[in-house]
């Protein structure tokens, strides 16, 4: 047994991942439902996630479903969306208290299993389609959610960067879809799409807690029944080598009434999760802007006092690095220059021994910490599903350990700036009236 006792079982075209551990006071269920993100379905899929969590056949309204969850000692249920590479993933998560910690021990686990299966497979219907009332409410809520991206200026700037940088690729699409498409989706159309999802999407279920694999597999077979013609689509990993080559950096400015300018920069790396130099990319990002000892933090913030935050993060399955920093509008040129210089330094191999070793230690620390949390653990393991790989956590850590400075320099040379998006401030945001 390694750091994590992870077992996989294929059942009815769904992969069940069980992780037996006594660490937690709860049992977690995480369903991941994956499809390539595409213009045609992106908004429908977002709406579907919220409709599914709003009622089941047995509990056909949000109120009834929530009451059933509360009765299960406050079991939580939430559906959420994420973009992993060029996939739009619906995650349905449920967490229930471990019976052994409850005063009057009840069989919450079995009930929870049933409820979760119903959320996915037995939604609340009216005739042959989703309940109109639920669809209507969730449409309004989704529209508001899409609008609210504009209100959070960091999220908004990030969204605009992706739209500009990937203007002709599916990755430009927002995971919540397009606000102006929401209204026109009918219950019928949504239900037809739902049936496609259940038939074709890749579905993975993670069960994490003080459980036994045999028992879980048994329960899954009992509760999760898919139709016979179910056939999963093939995985669609991005081929990093095919990513667009950059001839010229795109620079986009927008002005809004904000107090602080939001600077977002997007880089292509030509490396994704499945590649051999993926580990070197991890280390590159760590040294560049991933930690508080990174070049961006040290130079933009500590040395020049230009910003409170200056960081980079990367997307494993699209192979992109994103830099973000909140700065005075007047300091735009200066900040961009410093950020570009840090990248140049790395290409030249100007990486100190301590930057290099600290970063590797921090990445190691980070992955071990992430897997202490049930959702974090499931996310780490799910990378393999998205990338079509089969890396254990030990192999992953070993991969980081083996990275050399030359590997990092080689990656730094591949990493190419594609687009800069700057949300400029006019500076009077937030006047108060009584």
């Amino acid at each position, binding site marked *: 047994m390694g750091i994590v006792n992870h077992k996989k079982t294929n059942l009815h075209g769904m992969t069940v991942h069980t992780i037996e551990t006594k660490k937690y006071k709860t049992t977690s269920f995480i369903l991941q439902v994956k499809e390539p993100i595409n213009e045609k379905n992106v908004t429908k899929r977002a709406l579907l996630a919220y409709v599914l969590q709003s009622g089941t056949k047995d509990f056909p309204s949000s109120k009834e479903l929530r009451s059933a969850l509360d009765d*299960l000692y*406050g*079991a939580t249920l939430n559906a959420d969306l994420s973009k992993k590479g060029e996939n739009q993933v619906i995650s349905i998560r449920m967490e229930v208290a471990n019976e052994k910690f409850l005063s009057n021990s009840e069989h919450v686990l079995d009930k929870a299993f049933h409820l979760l299966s119903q959320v996915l497979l037995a939604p609340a219907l009216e005739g042959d389609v989703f309940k109109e009332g639920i669809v209507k409410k969730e449409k309004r809520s989704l529209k508001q959610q899409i609008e609210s991206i504009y209100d959070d200026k960091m999220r908004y700037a990030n969204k605009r960067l992706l739209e500009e940088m990937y203007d002709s690729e599916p990755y430009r699409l927002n995971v919540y879809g397009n606000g102006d498409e929401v209204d026109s989706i009918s219950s019928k159309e949504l239900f037809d799409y739902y049936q496609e999802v259940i038939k074709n999407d890749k579905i993975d279920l993670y069960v994490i807690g003080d459980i036994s694999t045999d028992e879980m597999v048994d329960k899954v077979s009992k509760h999760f029944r898919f139709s016979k013609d179910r056939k999963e689509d093939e995985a669609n990993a991005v081929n990093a080598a095919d990513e667009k080559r950059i001839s010229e950096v795109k620079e986009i400015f927008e002005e809004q009434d904000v107090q602080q300018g939001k600077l977002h920069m997007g880089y292509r790396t030509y490396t994704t999760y499945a590649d051999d130099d993926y580990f070197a990319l991890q280390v590159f990002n760590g040294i560049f802007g991933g930690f508080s000892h990174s070049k961006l933090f040290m130079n933009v913030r500590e040395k020049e006092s230009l910003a409170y935050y200056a960081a980079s993060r990367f997307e494993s399955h699209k192979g992109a690095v994103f830099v973000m920093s909140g700065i005075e509008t007047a300091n735009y040129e200066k900040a961009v220059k410093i950020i570009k210089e840090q990248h140049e330094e790395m290409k030249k191999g100007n990486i100190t021994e301590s930057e290099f070793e600290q970063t590797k230690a921090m990445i190691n620390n980070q992955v071990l910490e992430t897997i202490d949390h049930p959702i974090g653990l499931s996310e780490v393991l799910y990378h393999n599903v998205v990338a079509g790989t089969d890396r254990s956590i030990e192999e992953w850590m070993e991969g980081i350990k083996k990275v050399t400075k030359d590997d990092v320099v080689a990656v730094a040379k591949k990493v190419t700036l594609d687009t800069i998006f700057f949300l400029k401030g006019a500076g009077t945001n937030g006047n108060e009236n009584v």
Partner: protein
Amino acid sequence: MGMKTFDQLDETLHYDELPNGLKVYVLEKKGFNKTYATFTTHYGSVDNHFKPLGKDENVKVPDGIAHFLEHKLFEKEHGDVFQDFSKQGASANAFTTFNRTAYLFSTTGDVKKNLTTLIDFVQEPYFTEKTVEKEKGIIGQEIRMYDDNPDWRVYFGLIENMYHHHPVKIDIAGTEKSIAKITKDDLYECYETFYHPSNMILFIVGPVDAEDILNFVKDNQSQKTFKEKEHIERFFDEEPKTVAKTKKVIEMTVQTPKCYMGYKEATPNRQGKDLMKHELSVNLLLEMMFGKSSPNYESLYEEGLIDQTFSFDYTEENGFGFSMLGGDTGSPDEFVERISGMVEAFKQQSIDEDSFERARKKKIGAFLRSLNSPEFIANQFTRYAFNEMDLFDVIPVFESLTVRDVKEVLQNHFKKEAMTVCQVQKKKS
């Protein structure tokens, strides 16, 4: 040294109070990779008027100084302590609240080495005029980042509405103007007064040997000398029961308005079990009135007055307390009218036993879930301990609550005259 076992939760807490007054707690978490440690002083943004240690005259210090001090404690003569942690495979951080300042690290590597770094850096201040000046630019950008955040603005706006005098209404980070006045001498004065070990708690949670860690900390502290502990005198002006302002509208570049409404607690001076019972009762009541399984939530959602961002909470510390409800809404005024109407209607109804039990179960489940998180345990335990409560009493106290407790807070806390509203509205161009 002592030890408390919580059989139902399968947890054992080890603790000790050292001769210098420092309280140390260790919770062993087998099977986890990470060790998480917090070193917290009972000092936050509200402590701006006090008698400095060893002096006779009271002082009033600039707004935002506790938070400023938190930033500056990381800087030493040899450089930045953040770097020491990351060299040792740990990530460090800190935060300042209304009445706490916490320094923390998490690591899957060498716990003792990082623990030494944590304790020593917090206990060895190094402030210079030059480094203080440098920080003003960074914190200035932090303040602006929050200024652009409508969720933060509406939350703080609401607290500002509630209080006439209490410094909880002052933004934790201060303003660019107020921090401009801060000097290194101010920082030392606050430090000397509030960072005495007797005003602090060290909490360690992770796959450690508790006895060993306690002895290690004891050893570290026995090698240092501290001034005699003294009672800290803090001053607060008399705060009226009424709210300072009943409504405020902030205009921002948003598409969806935000609305928060709150009820100001009239007697926020409970401590210990009384406080825990009161806090849990109000939160249970809020869950019954507006939780996702309540008829009210269903109506509000159906009417399009709330969405997934809707939330509520009650919090109380020595000197201030309030409940708040809110989120994004298309019609902020209607939102206020409906919610306050629902609260009034609830007062007229008899409380339904089933929904009381359901809310209690939900709350107990949520508490168990949060015990998966070492961060939650360390931070909440410390907050509770500063208010003479014990985090591990939460389940028994929930179990002891009755419908009568909930009825009482319904009548006493949710008073019409204690209500105030803050909205973020779309800026008219």
